[in-house]
């Protein structure tokens, strides 16, 4: 029983491999390369199917090309691989389900950052002890010279040796 399963698996594998070897001689179209670039090589570490030299990736590249030649769309090809290898095969995780946490994480992080910053600024400004008595007149002068004057003062200050 076991042996027959093994043999049949081997036969299926052989059948799977045979057309692939022939197809490996074919040029990959830019679209096939693009799809291969968006799939993760299942047996490598951190490489796409496009960039991996593993046997599996070579077969997968050929498979992609063959499916495209059969008239399948990009999405159909991707779906085919997702069905076989799971969602982890996609280098760009889908924006749906729990994976949305991934996509919204940075947005929420940024929003929190903006909120903290805004609170900080408002609070600090409210707590300002006294009006700005040192405000130099030249800063308000609507003149490029004012800018240069300010720059000169800043440069003078920086002429002091770095402590």
């Amino acid at each position, binding site marked *: 029983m076991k042996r027959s399963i093994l043999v049949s698996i081997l036969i299926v594998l052989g059948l799977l491999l045979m057309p692939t070897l022939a197809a490996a001689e074919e040029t990959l179209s830019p679209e096939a390369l693009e799809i291969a670039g968006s799939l*993760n090589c299942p047996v490598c570490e951190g490489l796409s199917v496009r960039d991996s030299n593993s046997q599996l990736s070579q077969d997968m590249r050929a498979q992609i090309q063959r499916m495209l030649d059969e008239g399948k769309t990009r999405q159909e090809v991707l779906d085919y691989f997702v069905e076989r290898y799971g969602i982890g095969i996609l280098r760009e995780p889908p924006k749906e389900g729990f994976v949305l946490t991934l996509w919204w994480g*940075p947005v929420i992080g940024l929003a929190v*950052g903006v909120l903290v910053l805004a609170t900080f600024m408002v609070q600090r400004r409210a707590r*300002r002890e006294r009006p700005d008595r040192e405000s130099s007149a030249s800063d308000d002068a609507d003149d490029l010279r004012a*800018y240069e004057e300010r720059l000169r003062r800043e440069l003078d200050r920086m002429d002091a040796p770095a*402590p």
Partner: protein
Amino acid sequence: MAQLGSGALVVALALAVYGIVAGVLGARRRIPELVESSIRAVWGVTALILVAVVTLLTAFLTHDFRLEYVFGRSSRDMPIYYVAAAFYGGQEGSLLYWAMIAGVLSSLAVYLHRKRDRALIPYVAATVLSVQTFLLFMLTFIASPFTLLPMRPADGQGLNPLLRDPGMILHPPFLLGGYASFTVPFGFAMAAMITGRLGDDWIRAIRRWSLVAWGILGVGLLFGAWWAYHVLGWGGYWGWDPVENVALLPWLTATAFIHSVIVQERRGMLKVWNMALIVASFALSIFGTFTVRSGLISSVHSFAISPIGPWFLGYLAVVVLVSVGLLIYRLPGLQSDRAIESVVSRESGFLLNNLLFTAMAFATFWGTVFPLVTELIRETKLTVGPPFYRQVNGPLLFAMMLLMGVGPLLAWRRSNTGLLLRNLLWPGVAGIASGIVMAVVLGHILAAASVAVTVFAVGTIVLEYVRGARVRRRTTRESYPLAVAMLVRKNGRRYGGYIVHLAVAIMAIGIIGSTFFQVERQYTLQPGQSGTIGPYTLTYQRLDNRVNAQGQAVVAVVDIAKNGEPRGTVESKRFFYRNYEDQPTAEMGIKTIGIDDVYVVLDQWDENGTASLRFYINPMVSWIWVGGAVYVLGMVTVLWPAPQPARRPVTRPVREAALSEA
């Protein structure tokens, strides 16, 4: 030999522990002799680590294969420079290297600051020695590079093939060196928090040290990008690989710090924040070392996996707990001296800069650890690849460039809006004009907009130089070139910083070009056949089989012609090293023609010479390397000691007065 090395490490470990005790006791009980002893312990530990380093290097160069580490990473047929580089080619050696850099820099820091920062120094010494204690413990008990084999093998196994590349001689030492350099700023931050001396002293002391760490780490990242571009064959230089990401994290927080520290120096604000950034940079450096060594996250770097991961995780937890605890304890002492006066001010510009950099660090961290989280919680394997980072970090980069254009023109405390807008006029016009031209020429709105903000940022930098030169000329009557040179010389921090901004802009052009306009074709060719890509015709000449001492190389020779005109030949190679035949590595065939890099990858081949080749056109990539050189130039300028002006004596009261004026 091996006994000398491991003996030195054991003695160093004991000395480090003694130094911690001596430093803390000396400071608490006010015994200067003990403090001095603790300082000497820092030097002693470093000297002993150097003894171990020399021992290990000698073992490598004399091919002493009794040492398991030497046996596993070198062989007699390797060229001498790879034998020497194999020193940091494995986890034990790279830990020793980490300890060496941390030791040398902290010895130097303790030497330079021991007089002026007398109050901080005992705790600085204790902190850096506690880091050394951890490393030396690992090097002695968990991952010793001096473990002996029962007998002496005739030859070694050789270095991992991926590391046998010039880029790999340079990338790890700079990256690890950058990580290790954060030990010094961390030491001062901890000392400031422990002693409660939270004033300007520790900030002043670490300004340069944090710049050193930031600079070295940046160079390490650039060498990594260069290596990936030449070796990995995906046609790119940054793959958002987890290990690349974690190396980027401390660089991002350090970049945020070197900007926000200016606010603290000038305005006495952001004290908690700066402290947090320094601690975060150090903790992320530990995290980076830990990630590359643990194989925690699937990565192209996973050849470096080892069992020291849990130890690093434990140490990381201790570092974070202790420093966060101290930070909370010291919160009352870290109140700002002054308040933000206007939203349109240099201060808020820097705050926005910090928001963007931390947001990018967070997004990168989030994407890197997300697969780990989903695997734990949902038991789903997930890959977060480049598309995520492009979509999330792309807009952040865009905003950074925009801010880089506005920031330098903002005045401290409060900007006159009219004046600001007038100053922004010409850079803005230049940016918009170049954006329109690019949109017409390239027909790509996103790329055109990116070019526009980059040109805008460059415009501001140029304007800053012109203004600065004009201001100098008014008092000194120098010629313009001399005025610019003197400006950079006398205000290295400000104008060196602008050089780094310029470097970022140059790299941005390279990134825009290669991200939006990469072209790729794949051909299966017989010798003599050619494939076309864009205006280029690439003719596959032949497949060579070259044998050398280290192994053999399969080389595809490809002729390049542009619009029918021959433009030279490239060789795309695959190497099969002895003992590592199942791990072939590669060297891409790259030829820079004008703004394009023509990039040839040898994919597959068969015995009758048919080869499957992948061609890329990578526009503007060489600008990234030029930008990298400019980054180094800017970094050196910032760090170069300012000339001592004779007219102003260096007295603290003067400086205090100048600061309180601010």
